[in-house]
């Protein structure tokens, strides 16, 4: 599997840059307001040692913590009008998302384990395309670690990840069953939880 730079704005396109990184996760600031990848999307960052992450949480807030946003739309007909009427908002708010690291590239091989070092700050981040997502979803052994994460709602983003992976497989149901079996086996005593996740993933 080789990673490549795709067109901007859609799967394969660059969405932002890493602004904070640890071994287990990295935070990306988006170029465009509200243009974070969907929950559960597989993203990749870094040119030299690409690191894969699953989008676990997104946040939009004022860039300056001392200047929280104030309501501006009391007399407006729509939310769009609020933004049109206050164009400075797009420059004063930022959208960031947190991805949990799930693997990396070693040469041309995928490794489904944490990279030895965190992502570099200002690494380019983009959404993986269908082929990359399919290749990466060959293994799902890292899912229990995601379910233990303290970011976002693990059950929800794991379900979202499964749903997105299934969509790029020719036999989505087989993929979900395979993933479900692995999770059920790796999470003793948590069948209800696994069941709920799979139901969410297939709903």
């Amino acid at each position: 599997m080789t990673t490549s730079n795709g067109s901007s704005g859609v799967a394969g396109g660059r969405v932002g840059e890493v602004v904070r990184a640890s071994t287990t996760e990295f935070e990306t600031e988006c170029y465009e307001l509200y243009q974070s990848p969907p929950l559960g999307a597989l993203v990749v960052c870094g040119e030299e040692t690409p690191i894969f992450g699953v989008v676990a949480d997104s946040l939009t807030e004022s860039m300056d913590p001392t200047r929280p946003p104030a309501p501006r739309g009391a007399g407006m007909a729509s939310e769009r009008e609020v933004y049109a009427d206050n164009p400075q908002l797009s420059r004063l708010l930022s959208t960031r998302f947190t991805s949990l690291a799930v693997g990396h590239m070693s040469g041309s091989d995928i490794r489904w384990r944490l990279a030895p070092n965190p992502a570099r700050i200002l690494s380019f981040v983009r959404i993986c395309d269908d082929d990359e997502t399919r290749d990466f979803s060959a293994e799902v052994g890292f899912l229990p670690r995601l379910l233990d994460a303290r970011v976002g709602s693990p059950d929800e983003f794991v379900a979202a990840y499964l749903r997105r992976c299934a969509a790029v497989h020719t036999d989505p149901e087989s993929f979900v069953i395979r993933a479900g079996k692995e999770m059920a086996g790796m999470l003793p005593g948590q069948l209800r939880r696994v069941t709920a996740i799979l139901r969410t993933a297939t709903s």
Partner: protein
Amino acid sequence: MPLDLDATASQIDLMAGHIAGRRDDREAALRAVVAVLQAFDKDTYEERRAAFAASQNRSTVRFLQDPAATFAPTTIPTDLTVAAVDGSHIDIDRHLAARCFLINIGVCVLTYGVGPDADLRSAPRLYASDDELVIRDEIGERSERIDGTILGALRHVEELSAAANVIEALPDGRPAVMLVDGPLTVAGLGGRVFPDFVLRTLVSEGYGSAMERYRNATEGRTLAVAGYTSLPGHDEVVRALSLALPDENPDQAEPTPDGVLDREVFGRLLPPGHRSALFASTGHPLEPYQQGHTTVNFYLNTGDEIGRAELPAWAADEPGAVDLLHATLLDQCRRGGGYPTVLIEAHEQAIVNGRDRRTFVELVESALADRGVATRTSEKNISKTVRRI
């Protein structure tokens, strides 16, 4: 040592008592000025004004319109560009090993209507070379250090210059308004006596060329440039009107009836959203340096307060410029919760907070240390950073 709040509180109490005591007197004086305003007779005023100038060798306000008149706002255009500049500086720090100062200019350009957009940026400039730290005369014999008041004036001139840059870069075809925080004219230099070459540099060249650029930029577009002051503390209109007070001796030095301010008078006069008549300040000590670029003013009831706008005198003759400025100020104050949004954002871009100042000092010291230049912070600075018993 912590402040002795007990001793302070009692003095504050005393002060409050004085203020309260003066309140009734002030109210009476205010009513009197309003009455004069409403009964304003131009001929009478001009007579007294001339006499005052002759006797006191000082000038007072010139009313371009009936000062009692109020003007309702016009409709603001849908497609409009509103811009503002603001500046802040880090003064020369004598405790710092390097002698330098920094001026940071903040810019905000908001595009409304079709294709709404915003451009927020700042540009810091470090003044460190010997030439940058002084103002020299033309021959280069004399120089004046740039610090304190001069630095403040230089900063204002840089703001005006940055505003001109922004205006010139705006695309054609859309009406535009440029605001500067505070008065348009260079303030602060009137109190002390500064060398002539300093005033020429700052006012004639700095202020003057910026104003010229503004005028040139009005070719082919509707453009208004103004300085906006929130909660203005001026009393020149009041002093001017006091000339028309009954039984007042025109030879008296202009009285300020018990500290009544212009904004209080216009607060009584102007309905919300209305502006006052245009008037011009005259006899400013820096007027000779202004290259003929005089200004006119008006007060505005934003709905939340009385603000003051200062614009180039020639703008008063530009069709629609004053109305555009009036409508834009109102709209911006509405958006900004009482103060123009565009100025708020320009200010946010410009401010250098305490942490930034400390970082600046660290950067300077580490850059010098990297090059083997020993930095010796003064004892006072050390004592400020390490507080010991």
